[in-house]
């Protein structure tokens, strides 16, 4: 049993090592991109931002509007409308501290993580990565770097939108259903929405974006030559991303709060 645990730990360390190496290589490639010009890479980056960010925006907005409304409804049911400041505080704590970065990352994993892993896996099996290399275009620079940057940008921006919309949803519910005025609602929001809260939320989304994109790229590139590995790469990418995102969320929360 001890041997099995050791083997699992070694595998985990190797996995983290591979992820770090891929991220480091992407970082090195970004320096080369700065030196050589980023025209084609920038195009891939924009596409990634579009697919991960713009196309997911509607889902994120609706979901977080409802989350804001639900939190406020439950809080008013629990504590009454006289507790508007407490309600706002809970809303900020739940949404900005936790749900904003976490749920956004989960949605991005479900939508774009699988897409990235399966797309890269298909490209690798079809020999397209070798074709790129034979054209003198390093695959990490052209395929991986813009995907990592694009997905990270998308997660950051989506999280911001998600948190803003959630607070707006909370206010709309408080105002329309319970007649709570904006000033009273703000009293519970503004004092707690400190730069530190926003900074930690930003840090979480940054880490999640980097992590999810790197894990999914790594899974996509890890396939051999069989088509059956394509869906496996997608599934593994999603499961590993989810696990790591939750683990890191706990780690960041425990460290910084």
């Amino acid at each position, binding site marked *: 049993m001890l041997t099995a645990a050791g083997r699992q730990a070694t595998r985990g360390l190797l996995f983290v090592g591979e992820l770090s190496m891929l991220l480091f290589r992407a970082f090195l490639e970004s320096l080369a991109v700065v030196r050589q010009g980023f025209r084609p890479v920038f195009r891939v980056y924009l596409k990634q931002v579009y697919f991960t960010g713009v196309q997911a925006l509607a889902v994120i907005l609706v979901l977080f509007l409802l989350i804001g409304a639900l939190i406020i409804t439950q809080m008013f049911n629990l504590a009454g409308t006289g507790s508007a400041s407490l309600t706002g505080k809970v809303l900020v704590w739940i949404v900005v501290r936790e749900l904003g970065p976490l749920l956004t990352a989960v949605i991005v994993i479900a939508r774009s993580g699988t897409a990235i892993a399966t797309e890269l896996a298909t490209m690798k099996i079809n020999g*397209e990565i070798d074709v790129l290399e034979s054209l003198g275009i*390093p695959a990490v620079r*052209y395929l991986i770097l813009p995907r990592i940057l694009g997905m990270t940008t998308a997660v950051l921006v989506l999280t911001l939108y998600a948190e803003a919309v959630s607070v707006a949803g909370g206010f709309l519910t408080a105002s329309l259903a319970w007649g709570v005025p904006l000033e009273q609602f703000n009293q519970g929001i503004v004092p707690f929405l400190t730069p530190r809260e926003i900074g930690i939320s930003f840090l979480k989304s940054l880490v999640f974006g980097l992590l999810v994109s790197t894990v999914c790229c790594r899974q996509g590139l890890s396939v051999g030559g069989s088509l059956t590995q394509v869906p496996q790469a997608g599934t593994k990418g999603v499961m590993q991303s989810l696990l790591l995102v939750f683990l890191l969320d706990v780690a960041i929360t425990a460290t910084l709060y």
Partner: protein
Amino acid sequence: MDAAVRFIDAVLDPVLKGADRSFEPGTISAVVTEGEDVSALLVRVLTGLTPLEEGQVLILGHDLVLLSKEKQGEVRRRIGIVFPDGGLISNLKVLENVTLPLLYHTGESRREIERRAIALLDRFGCGDVLFELPGNLSASRRRRVGFARAFAPDPEVIVYHWRAGGLDVEERELFLREAVAFHGDAPGRTTIFLTPHAGALAGAGTFPIVHLTRGRFE
């Protein structure tokens, strides 16, 4: 003058067993291999994607395996590869496939690059599918786009991984005619056909044919 491509005691079991051969600048040559897999592996060796076990392959005077990533890229941009199925990037549209190496390697304006790419695609009868993804094209169209992409950067060495299967006579003749014409467009350009069947090149003209048999050029 240095050879454009030179195999020096190249060993990569079981395909190359001490192979020696020079391909001089300005020449057209055909290498008849023992199968499609061997041709594909030779393409990888020529582009430095598969290192040899022993010996060297010099492309334009460089051993790609020994170069840094940056230098490899610089040499590879001077080599054109025509893949049997086109070798297109599946998530890029036809026009993007052809402009990609130019956008990546040259400082020309996007408009100029696109103008050149469209002219090349028109030459291969693909001017009407500029914004199609490769998956929506027939095999023949994909090959044509592959030709256009290989021609676009004006390479000094062009390698055709030649497969005649699946082509009708008219298409085969078109591809051979274009390949020979492209060779003549630039003095000093080196053209190498890799094919398992010498007959697949019938009608392309007279040029040396070497056989890669049992790991050696004969």
